[in-house]
């Protein structure tokens, strides 16, 4: 028998019986524009990103410029949030820290996101011994309490931004891998995945074009809160003396440095703390919103 011959008779009897339908204009975008979480979160994160980008103009002083004659000044018109122990302008440092922290958060999360998604996809898609081995590795890494692992790794790879980067790369991918693995398992069992396979498509094509677009959503949503976790972990490492190198302005070290003055200059640690909280709120809202918007109907 030859390939099915296609009659192009226009409207067949079935076309008459066709149920109605509408093809709407880009629905995801419209949904995004109607999603309150996404809009609020987007506004918050957008503002922060804008501040970060415009830091050189918004900051009124060089964040590293010391003025040892004017340390620990109270907020004034000259220094909106006062100065720190080295007479540096706190507002300027806060603004530059936004740039640093957001960039750190996003870049640090990038590798675990990519690697974890890859591993999770492979484990979930191929199953069998690949899955068994990868799952056990994931289990092993998950067995270590988060901070215990991060701290040990920071000792192994060294402090500073490089150390943080590597430590998170090694510790953080498992969460993505686990999430993506389970969503991939679900996706793989969907009929459309079976159809793609029996359509003669290669595994690589099925993974990249069919499975990933469905599974990556969750990873993206988690990545949003993960950025906050990373900022928090950096803050906490700073507290334990393993954090960012001075004099880089960073909310974490500002919280940490400021806590010595908690009783006399409360804002020194509270305001950077609030910045982390606001970032957290913004990114969580974006995450929630994205989850809503990207969820297929």
């Amino acid at each position, binding site marked *: 028998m030859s390939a099915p011959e296609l009659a192009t008779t226009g409207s067949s009897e079935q076309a008459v019986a066709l149920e109605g339908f509408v093809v709407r204009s880009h629905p995801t975008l419209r949904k995004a524009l109607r999603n309150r979480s996404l809009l609020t979160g987007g506004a918050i994160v957008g503002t922060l990103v804008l501040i970060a980008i415009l830091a050189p103009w918004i900051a009124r002083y060089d964040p590293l410029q010391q003025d040892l004659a004017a340390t620990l000044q109270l907020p004034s018109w000259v220094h909106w949030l006062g100065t720190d122990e080295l007479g540096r302008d706190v507002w300027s440092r806060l603004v530059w820290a936004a740039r640093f922290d957001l960039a750190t958060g996003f870049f640090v999360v990038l590798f675990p996101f990519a690697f974890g998604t890859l591993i999770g996809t492979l484990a979930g898609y191929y199953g069998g011994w690949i899955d068994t081995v990868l799952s056990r590795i994931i*289990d*092993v890494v998950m067995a*270590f309490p988060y*901070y*215990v692992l991060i*701290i040990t790794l920071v*000792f*192994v790879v060294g402090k500073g931004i490089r150390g943080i980067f590597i430590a998170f790369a090694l510790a953080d991918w498992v969460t993505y891998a686990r999430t993506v693995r389970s969503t991939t398992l679900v996706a793989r069992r969907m009929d459309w995945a079976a159809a793609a396979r029996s359509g003669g498509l290669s595994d690589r094509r099925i993974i990249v074009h069919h499975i990933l677009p469905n599974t990556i959503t969750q990873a993206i949503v988690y990545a949003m809160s993960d950025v906050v976790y990373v900022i928090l972990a950096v803050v906490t490492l700073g507290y334990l003396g393993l954090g960012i190198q001075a004099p880089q302005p960073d909310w974490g070290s500002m919280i940490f440095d400021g806590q010595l003055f908690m009783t006399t200059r409360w804002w020194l640690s509270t305001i950077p*703390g609030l910045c982390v909280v606001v970032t957290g709120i913004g990114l969580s809202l974006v995450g929630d919103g994205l989850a809503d918007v990207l969820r297929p109907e």
Partner: protein
Amino acid sequence: MYVLRRLLQAIPVVLGIVVVVFFMLRLIPGDPAAALLGTHATPEAIQALRDRWGLDEPIWVQFWLFLQQLAQGDTGTSLFYDVSTRTLIASRIPVTVALVALASVFSVLIAVPLATYAAVRKDRLPDHAIRMVPLVGLGMPSFWVGLVLILLFSVQLGWFPVGGWGDTFAEHVYGLILPALTSALGIVPLLVRSLRAGMLEVLEADYVAVARSKGIRESRVLFVHVARNAFVPTLTLLGINIAFLMGATVVVERVFQLNGLGSLMLTAISNRDFPVVQGVTIIFALAVVVITLVTDLVAAATDPRIKLS
């Protein structure tokens, strides 16, 4: 059968943990012998110590020795304190276990009512308010929360000790309240979020509707039908998060000056006291494995379906 299967599954994980811990720690730069002997140590003295500790043996020999010791339930003798790590760890375990346990209790006591209330009042004001909790809570570093709690409750109000864990059982509990609260606040956001979703699912289930239509009291509907079904996801979630709670002890024990496993680990890692770090990390990881196992088993006992999946 299910129990056996779960136990078997844990074996490769435990082995993996052991391997990872051993080799990870060997990668940490810094010589423990030099660290212990200090400024005036001669190279000969350092070498003698290294020989005694077997630090110059090939790594595989060291690993084999380590496994042998581990088989006897020990991770060796602390380089720094010259006592068995088993003794050392055993003396610290009560603090950490009590802290984690109390923190778990607190997180449940805080999260469950909040989540339930939010779910019952879905989309109304209490729900919206409670849903803000995870958003705000997510971004607060626990050492900072701890500090604020100390300033507020210990310094300003004088209700709790500033730190430490006292001598008597009552003092232990009393001293652990703020630290446990600090730890708990670290996971409450996640718990509230997931529990609310889980609770909503249960509340909307048909069997809850059926229970109501039987004519039984609403309290029984909530406590027997809803609670029991919501229990399993709560438990599982808590099981997963206890790992995080344990990690948080590293920070919280420091903030509140508690001498538990977390502070032992921080000290030991600075001292390059490998046997102790090995012991503590293995204990931490094993605890996580055991807790996961126990929560799974309890969940299976509560929900008989789990045994099949």
